[in-house]
């Protein structure tokens, strides 16, 4: 069962896009549209592959998370995705760090759907 952490993650847990740019070959980014939209499918496949290969964490950049308790919506939705071990919300940066179990292979579409159903807007998905 996924361990859920609602609230404010430490800054050190969140890696921004500028850091990712220095990790060529180990990071990926998906620019999200409407949940389930076909416009994201092409870039999604590349990230899906890296999820399987590396496991580890995924960083969701989200808009509209206005408070810690509101963010519990997204926490609950993400926890339902198979392979999600831990969720940490950082309201300051609007990011959600999702820790995956080893070998877990959730798709970008699953993350996108979870954020959409939570009532927020997913800007992009990053690999820290």
């Amino acid at each position, binding site marked *: 069962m996924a361990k859920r952490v*609602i*609230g*404010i993650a*430490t*800054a*050190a847990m969140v890696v921004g896009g500028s850091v990712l740019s220095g990790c060529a070959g180990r990071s990926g980014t998906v620019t999200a549209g409407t949940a389930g939209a076909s416009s994201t499918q092409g870039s999604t496949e590349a990230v899906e592959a890296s999820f399987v290969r590396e496991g580890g964490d995924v960083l969701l950049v*989200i*808009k*509209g*998370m*206005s*408070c*810690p*308790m*509101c963010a*519990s*919506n*997204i926490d*609950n*939705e993400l926890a339902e995705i198979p392979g999600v071990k831990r969720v940490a919300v*950082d*309201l*300051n*940066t*609007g*990011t959600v760090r999702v820790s995956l179990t080893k070998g877990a292979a959730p798709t970008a579409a699953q993350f996108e759907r979870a954020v*959409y*159903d*939570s*009532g*927020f*807007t997913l800007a992009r998905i990053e690999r820290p």
Partner: protein
Amino acid sequence: MSASTTRSVCVAIATLLLCCEPVSGQQATRVQAVTQPGRGEVDATQLISFDRYGRDPTGAGRTVTDLSVHTVLRYGISRDWSAVAQLPIVSRVTEMPAVGPGDDEEGIQGLGDARVDLRYRFYQHDFGPLNTIRLAARFGVEAPTGARDVGSHSWDPIIGASAMYINGRWGLNASAEYKLSTSTIRDNAIIGSGADDLLEFGTAAVYRVFPERWGNESHGAGYIVLEHVSRFETGGDREVVAYPGLLWEDTRWAAELSVGVPIHQRSVDRLERDFSLSIGFRVLF
């Protein structure tokens, strides 16, 4: 404090303890915010209110003291649709000057009028980590579940809309609704529960005082809340009430306190409000 009031306090506290459920935060106490549980999620809010009405325009010298516990359950049907059920428990004590050896106090305890709403968020624009603009419409009905002299004893349809704007530390909400009363009972006690239709309009500003920025050591947030609610009845009665208050929201719970101060009141034969005091709890399991 009278015996009936004491009993009411016990009922309120017991109900509160039994009914704590997950809720959402970042919303003012009275003015409807455009927030809802996620799909398939249920949350609840409980608000204990103490309202004192002591200005009797008829000169009869009546006073009414209401102690009420409002339980609000919300269910996320989908991303943009939600259902809301509200059930008040009311204890009302009416006091009149004694004119003889009889009792000068009458107490009523029981359910108030329950309400069910269907809400649809038809616009949402998220433009930053915290920032958002949202609009919602709601359609509801107030059911005749109220006890004697507490409810309208009628099915009253309600239509309304809400707007929410959050930018950084500021949150602004506005809400309006119209209740079409089908009741034939003229409630002489409280505005909004009689035979006249009711237009209610409210605004709320929520400002995050602490922390200035979310950081590593942040575990909760303190807000200053200022609400205003205007109630206009088609019969001419009206009131405008300001509700300054405080809200503390942690990651697992929230608590709020507000005081109602009447700004303007006009009534022919109804009691006018002296003040209100409300304490709310939100717990996330």
